[in-house]
């Protein structure tokens, strides 16, 4: 994992006018509850414009970044921390390729601001396998051929892990509901269902 220093060394970031960007405003309002947005607008937590320090805990390790407040968790990890396992399919919280686990809950990291998940435990697919090998969910995906192009796979794997940590022996209905937030265009659903149904031994998270 890259630290702040070795990752950002090549860039010269200049500050820019925060308010000129419509994208910033929409991103903040889209991802923040109205009350929180109001509090921020009131200056309580307002940061930026330009890069600000953001400290994340990803896969148990500290990641310090200098990023714009509008940067999503997905983009922060992919573009600044070289954690490219999770993908961006739609960038609107519809396809689920970006699914990560934050404090035990599956979230769309494309629709989560990095700055909002400081102090939380963030897990993405890059940190799932250990020195002992693949996570049981990853192994089951390989065994059942629950992937084709593989671009949606990291999101499905993380959504499956979140599901199984909550329901270690899920019913078919729980599997379907737990994975309905993810889309696979190659059409691997049947195999994914088989894979998740076969997983044993995931402890309750």
């Amino acid at each position: 994992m890259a630290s702040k220093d070795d990752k950002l060394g090549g860039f010269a970031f200049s500050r820019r006018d925060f308010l000129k960007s419509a994208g910033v405003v929409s991103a903040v309002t889209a991802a923040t509850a109205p009350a929180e947005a109001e509090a921020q607008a009131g200056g309580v937590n307002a940061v930026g414009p330009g890069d600000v320090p953001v400290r994340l805990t990803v896969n148990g390790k500290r990641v310090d970044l200098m990023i714009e407040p509008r940067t999503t968790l997905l983009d922060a990890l992919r573009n600044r921390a070289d954690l490219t396992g999770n993908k961006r399919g739609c960038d609107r919280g519809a396809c689920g390729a970006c699914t990560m686990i934050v404090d035990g809950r599956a979230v769309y990291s494309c629709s989560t601001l990095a700055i909002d998940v400081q102090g939380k435990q963030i897990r993405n697919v890059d940190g799932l396998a250990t020195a002992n090998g693949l996570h049981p969910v990853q192994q089951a995906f390989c065994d059942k051929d629950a992937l084709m192009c593989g671009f949606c796979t990291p999101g499905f794997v993380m959504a499956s892990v979140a599901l199984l940590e909550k329901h270690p022996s899920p019913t078919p209905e729980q599997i379907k509901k737990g994975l309905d937030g993810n889309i696979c265009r190659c059409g691997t659903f049947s195999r994914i269902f088989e894979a998740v149904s076969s997983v044993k031994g995931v402890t309750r998270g």
Partner: protein
Amino acid sequence: MASPIEPQGQPQPQTPAQPPAQGGGRGQGPAPAPAQAQGGGRGGPPPPPADPKYHWAAPHSAIGTHVKRLDGPDKVTGRAKYTFDISRPGMLYGKIVRSPHPHAKIVAVDLSAAQKAPGVKATLLWRDPADTQRNVVMFQGDEIAAVAADTEEHATDAARLVKVDYEVLPAVIQVEQALAGTAPAVFAASGPAADTTSGTPRSNIRQGQTQETGDIAAGFKQAAHTLEQTYSTHVITHVCLESHGAVCEWDGDNLTAWVSTQGVNATKDGFAQGLKIPASNVRVITQYMGGGFGSKLGAQDPQAIICARLAKDAKAPVKLMLDRKEEHLATGNRPSAAARVKVGVAADGTITAFDAESWGTGGAGAAAGFPLPYIYLPPNRRRSHKDVFINTGLQRPMRAPGHPQGSFITEMYMEELADLVKMDPVEFRIKNLPPEAPNAMWGSYLRQGAKEFGWDKRHPTGDPTPGPIKTGMGVAINTWGGGGSQGRAHVEISSDGTVVVRCGTQDLGTGTRTLVAVVAADTFGIPVGNIKPEIGDTVYPASGGSGGSTTAAGISPAIRIATVNALDALKAKIAPALSVDAASLVAVNGRIQVKDDPSKGMSWAEACKQIGPQPIAADGAWQPGLSSVTTSGVQFAEVKVDVETGIVKVTRVLALQDCGLVVSRLTAESQVYGGVIGSLNFALFEDRILDRNTGQMVNPNMEWYLLAGMSDVPKIDVRLIDQSERGVIGIGEPPTVPTAAAVALAVRNAIGVTVRSLPLTPAKILQTLAQRRA
């Protein structure tokens, strides 16, 4: 399709009413070929068939078995690096400025504000207002300019600062208006171009030639019943999870490009032509790619050329990946299809005559051909086709181009005809099928499938069960070309026993990487895990693009030939040590030994120790005799329809599919699952919806462009039919052809009324039910 040399402002002509050229179109109609039909050599005398020593030998140790996908671990851990994941030192991010208008003249482009924006390192004018050949945009999303900046956020900001002045021009949005002649005259009558030459007659329509066989009038005279109806399918987009895009890096005059493409070699040539540099200066790499479905087949994409030019100007690597909206608008779609048909059927169920006018739109200048009638060819038939041009993005081949559309229209009227003569739909189909042949096995598959599916429990049209939930069954059939002849491979065996197979193909997610290893392992009689396949790079022996289901049949023979050559060399090395004739040796169970005498032999590891410091190297190129063309398949579907909500739930699908010699069974089965689910999306969910007045796509995203999720997927049973004697054929496309028709017919069987267009949305089903009540 657009030329890779120049971004097309003016659409290029295509032959009307022809199936797309991507291999599979030739599968139209059964035209039964001999069992050992050759996969290549079309258009010239066939080359001599491969030496018998290369023929697929049985029993197989790896071919036809369930081998786990070799790159599974890399994909489930996130280690697999897609183009989207490539990061280079000092890399910039590119962003394209696109037209918001479906038809407009570019009056002026001002890049100055963007150039001054934070982090911007390069800008590019793609469509020069002064260039009268290129200064008109033809669809929402057409490219105009581009920027490169140090971060994605800065690139997005800078792109917004590019000021474009447009002269908005009248646009053709509705196919119906184009057909009626009430749409603005945009496209020349003689072809697709938005020809601005004064005096050019315009109609927005290109009329194809009428195709006619037999005696139509006589055919209708023999008919006991005549059906006249109109059927149609809609436009959908590819929605590859990984968008189109590239990372381009220059070293002097040499370009290295990581591209999400279905054809590394075509993309290399596209860069060479588009950038006017020698092809030998270009290297294209595609280790992993997130789906293509036909939309990533060539170098026709402006964004790859734009990316390379930005990188050249900025003197830094540039990553340019499209976003989801750009994907929907500008990277291809499946054209619509419609047909007004008149079909005559004799009292005994024989179709006697077919007459149709068909049309479809492939957008601003691309053809919209599809096969019709599909597979069932009456002796007396006539068809005329129109390509309708509207101001939307151009179509591209999409998984079995033309066939799902032709299948839907044909199977719908087949079912209505069966009801007219009161015949079981399976029996009616069998009666009208072409003669059975190895590549035309529908009759057998229909009988086999009907038995397994429980077709005898199907009720006549309209579920008589009381209550809102109605159940129904449907069936449809498919054909596809497959085959392929563009494969080359290089094999090296080292003294430590490792085997490397290099092949300039690419893995779209179909499992090509695994297939390469399976073929090699089978020849050498060693575990698949001992083979190291190296693909997805133009430094390897050039093979074809992955379109038309031609990859497996193109490269498998090449790998077979290369590995047999390498094995022969290895046998020659060890034969003296064993004091046997090299020709008596076989490679089996991890040993090289005299056939049926394990005592006269040695293990693979011992044998390879005889190789010495220089690896054994051998090459292979595709030869006929190891592959075939054309497949057949049948699918059955069962649905439940809630007639109060109009919601369709597909409960079961049974797919019987042949593809010749099944090389990698697990991944081949996955192709069938994927094809069925893709077609289910076409039937029920996805739809490119245009605002009828402004021409804007109203759902260019993934929340309103609907795709099936886990809860929408039925129980799917896959039955791969082995036809080992035919050699390798390919299976990417055929299974996605018939599901939509089978589902639509199951809905008809359930609710007792016919919805004659896709998609089968709840609103449309309720409307059709209401019309019957009225």
